[in-house]
């Protein structure tokens, strides 16, 4: 019935919007950028809910509206339904999507890693910027349906996210372990490991896909060293 656009357009629009607001318009104030992106989502959700509820009987209670969001609205937006809906029956709803469409093609950037922070939380932080828009959409839809609410996204539970995302994080974790190991050994004997460090730098900056062979190559000298 409606006109359609390709999914990759939506993906790149979302990435471009986030990067414009974060790096260009509000590069100094990330909270403001987040608020702006959320506001855009709010208007979109507001208008979409008007359209998608057109042929439906009115909702009598909140749960019905939430169910509508989980099933119909979610499948219109993300081409799938929510995987799990939990509630404490006091007004808090937890919607879980095990393969969130808009994040399924994203991966953490291992090159920005610094040793001070947990890479998992780092990646989650980078992803969270991309979640303000869908959060805004849900909030807009719900408030248009007469449920004023606050919506927040949480990507701490890793298995709940896309396969590609998981592997990317795994990559980060492995690289970090490797990095720490190298640093530790470098502290003991700086000169010997300079080539290894160089290899690691390469690995971190050009994002070579993780595979076991590389790690073996890198680890071999350390194993020898440790034996000594």
């Amino acid at each position: 019935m409606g006109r359609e656009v390709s999914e990759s357009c939506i993906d790149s629009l979302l990435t471009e919007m986030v990067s414009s607001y974060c790096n260009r318009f509000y590069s100094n104030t990330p909270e403001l950028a987040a608020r702006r992106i959320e506001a855009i989502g709010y208007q979109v959700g507001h208008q979409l809910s008007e359209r998608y509820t057109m042929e439906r009987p009115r909702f009598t209670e909140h749960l019905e509206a939430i169910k509508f969001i989980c099933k119909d609205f979610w499948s219109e937006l993300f081409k799938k339904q929510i995987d799990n809906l939990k509630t404490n029956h006091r007004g808090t709803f937890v919607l879980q999507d095990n393969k969130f469409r808009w994040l399924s093609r994203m991966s953490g950037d291992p090159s920005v890693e610094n040793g001070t922070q947990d890479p998992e939380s780092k990646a989650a932080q980078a992803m969270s910027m991309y979640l303000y828009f869908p959060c805004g959409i849900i909030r807009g839809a719900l408030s248009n349906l007469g449920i004023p609410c606050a919506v927040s996204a949480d990507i701490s539970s890793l298995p709940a996210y896309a396969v590609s995302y998981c592997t990317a994080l795994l990559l980060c974790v492995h690289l970090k372990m490797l990095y720490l190991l190298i640093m530790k050994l470098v502290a003991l004997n700086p000169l010997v490991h300079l080539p290894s460090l160089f290899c690691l730098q390469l690995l971190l900056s050009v994002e070579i896909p993780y595979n076991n062979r590389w790690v073996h190559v890198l680890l071999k000298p350390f194993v020898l060293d440790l034996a000594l």
Partner: protein
Amino acid sequence: MIVCVAVVGHQNNPLYIQSFTEADDALKLHHIVHCSLDVVDERVNNPKKSGLTLNETFLGLLYPTENYKVYGYLTNTKVKFILVTTDLDVRDADVRNFFRRFHAAYVDAVSNPFHVPGKKITSRTLAERVSNIVKSFGLSSAG
């Protein structure tokens, strides 16, 4: 003949109101629309008394006056559509059909990214579409 149609927001703020009469009775029609809002509220809050079936969006005949019949329609988003007509025998199906098309026109109008939610709709396209729907309503009920 349809003499007036209106869209009223969820806080009973008028979003769009248009009368289709030659005479200068816009104020009277606005008053009728205004009164009908109370009836809509009553219907929605006491669904049992009014025998409303299953939270349908179409609310049916709200109330008849001496010269007019007033019909109502309430969306999921608490937007009310009001229709004032002078026809005495109106088929329910016609009115439902009218509201469905009116609703579709409204949704298209508010989907405009430059429209500010809650503000009056000034879209010329909407005005055109509504007047077309109103014209065809007269035809289908006559035929």
